[in-house]
């Protein structure tokens, strides 16, 4: 783990602005050090020794054909397996820095929190990717779907970094699949610059430890951070789906930088036995008149631990802000454990805020009702669990992806899937935007 938090030396060839940023990050990291549970924002993350766990079989992806597919394997861009249309600019961060591509100065500047992941990952930027999404919609007016497959093929530690620059007025759905070697220790940072009036749906499917082959390895570590800055009128919808085998921590930092900006951060996790899933989110209302929402739903099997810390920062000046928070966890076994911490840090009165947090179990009356209709208890449980996740899955603006998420959740918990959303015509799956 420690090697993930040792900064690499600053290359001699980078421009001044980046040198300053890299040096500052290296200095801060020296002060801050690698994360420990002594930090408030890392207090639940199980960073110590991890018992061996076996990989989960990765089903064939059933995602609707994406408009672009980008593969980042072991931290390097795999051009052979990627498929990028002309309208999209994809290159390495090193190249984007050298060519001063639009928005590149956002690199390392989106969230300047003292978050060790962000600080340490910056020095390893060179192999990472830059993706520029221009305004205007291509073929048929459908919202483009960009698929980014981030995989690890070996054990050991690994940095993965991506910067998405989304132009003003653009609309895009980005799905990141993080999958691969069960023993890998990965630190993956995604930065998203949401332009004025742009709408970005960002789905992160955390599938570390899901591989093609059954293997057992010392359980892996998947540390992911998504940092977004949202300009006026921009909308950022984050969907963090944590299904990893081992220890995972996903942090989302969203900063609302303009009036009318909106951030909706949603998280869904299914935590199997022996695993620990951590979600940390923070929304900073940096200006007046922005809105935000946080929704988390966790399913925890016996022997699993899931933790959520959801923060909202509304400063003295951010009048007319509105924010909601709903944190829920469903314990599926006697020794399942959930920690939910809603944190509203509000410094003025002209704010609308609502929040709630609840840890519960499957409702025995609902189970009885389903069983009284002939469904065996495993199926009844699976149906209720699918129902619990459906609400979050439904917010993913791609029907195929949403139902895939439900299948992964049930599969990850060893429950029968294929129920609850079976094919009875499209009206069963809702009618959100379906990219071509």
């Amino acid at each position, binding site marked *: 783990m420690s090697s993930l938090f040792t900064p690499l030396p600053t290359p001699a060839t980078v421009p001044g602005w980046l040198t300053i940023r890299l040096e500052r990050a290296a200095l801060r990291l020296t002060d801050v050090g690698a994360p420990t549970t002594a930090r408030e924002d890392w207090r639940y993350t199980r960073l110590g020794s991890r018992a061996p766990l076996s990989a989960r079989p990765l089903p064939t992806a059933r995602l609707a054909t994406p408009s672009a597919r980008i593969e980042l394997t072991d931290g390097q861009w795999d051009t052979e397996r990627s498929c990028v249309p002309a309208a999209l600019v994809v290159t390495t961060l090193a190249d984007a820095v050298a060519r001063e591509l639009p928005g590149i100065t956002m690199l390392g500047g989106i969230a300047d929190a003292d978050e060790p992941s962000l600080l340490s990952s910056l020095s390893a930027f060179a192999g990472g990717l830059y993706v520029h999404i221009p305004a205007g919609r291509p073929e048929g007016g459908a919202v483009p779907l960009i698929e980014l497959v981030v995989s690890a093929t070996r054990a050991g530690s690994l940095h993965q970094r991506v910067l998405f620059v989304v132009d003003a007025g653009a609309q895009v759905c980005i799905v990141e699949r993080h999958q691969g070697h069960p023993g890998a220790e990965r630190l993956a940072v995604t930065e998203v610059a949401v332009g004025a009036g742009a709408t970005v749906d960002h789905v992160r499917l955390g599938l570390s430890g899901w591989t093609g082959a059954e293997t057992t390895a010392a359980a892996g570590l998947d540390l992911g951070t998504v940092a977004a800055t949202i300009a006026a009128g921009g909308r950022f919808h984050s969907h963090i789906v944590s299904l990893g085998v081992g220890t995972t921590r996903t942090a989302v930092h969203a900063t609302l930088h303009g009036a009318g900006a909106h951030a909706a951060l949603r998280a869904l996790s299914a935590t199997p036995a022996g695993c620990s899933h951590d979600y940390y989110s923070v929304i900073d209302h940096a200006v007046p008149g922005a809105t935000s929402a946080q929704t988390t739903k966790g399913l925890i099997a016996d022997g699993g631990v899931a933790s959520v810390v959801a923060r909202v920062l509304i400063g003295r000046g951010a009048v007319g802000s509105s924010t909601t928070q709903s944190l829920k966890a469903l314990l599926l076994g006697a020794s399942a454990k959930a920690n939910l911490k809603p944190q509203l840090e509000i410094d003025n009165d002209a704010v609308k805020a609502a929040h709630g947090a609840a840890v519960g179990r499957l409702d025995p009356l609902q189970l009885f009702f389903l069983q009284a209709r*002939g469904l065996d208890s495993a199926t009844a449980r699976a149906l209720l669990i699918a129902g619990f996740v*459906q609400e979050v899955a439904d917010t993913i603006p791609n029907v195929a992806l949403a139902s895939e998420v439900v299948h992964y959740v049930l599969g990850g918990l060893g429950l029968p899937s294929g129920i609850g959303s079976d094919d009875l015509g499209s009206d069963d799956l809702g009618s959100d935007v379906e990219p071509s």
Partner: protein
Amino acid sequence: MNLLEIDDLHVTVGETPILVGLNLRIPAGEVHAVMGPNGAGKSTLSYAVAGREGYDVTKGDIRLGGESLLALGPDERARRGVFLAFQYPVEVPGVRSKPFLRAAVNAVRKARGQAELDPGAFLKFLRKTLESVRLDEALTNRDLNSGFSGGEKKRFDILQMALLEPRFCILDETDSGLDIDAMRVVADGVNAMRTPERSMLVITHYQRLLDYIVPDVVHVLKDGRIMRSGDKSLVAELEARGYEWVTSP
């Protein structure tokens, strides 16, 4: 031949004994009504037959077609043909009605040795059945019972009953909350399901339902037992005199 036989049934909920020596026999093809004061144990009886957890049978037996149900879970009882229309149908937000209905229909069909219905065949069957209980298909695209009106929930239960084609049906106050027209529709649906093989137990507080679904036998459940049984004329007597006078079996 009796389809349902209940012998000396004792049921405890929590620590409280609710049913204390209840006997009931319902021959195949008959409809029996159960009436009784609030809190008498009518719903407890229906849950005990359906197998709800927490309704502990401490003594006695419940048999369907000669087979004891007591060791069976609620799903196994349902697959053997027990159906309970709940007094308070349960809302299940997030669970879409249509896939649920198909899963339920196929579970009982499989248990009966019938072929499972593919989505197309199921949809046909569903539409035909919806028509018979005069429900709009739109309801089946929503989450199960979730946000349904009281009457919609009750009719949705009858839809499930018609789809599952059970051998033995319990209707627990299915008439409560129904408007006059809806009660007629429900009664028609129930009457259409009366066959020489199928039996029903209709729990109600009101004579009106029993004018539509005419019972073969009427029972009074009071103080945890069947206190009196008779023909349909017992209903009018109860309407006139209340339950006070019904004292011993």
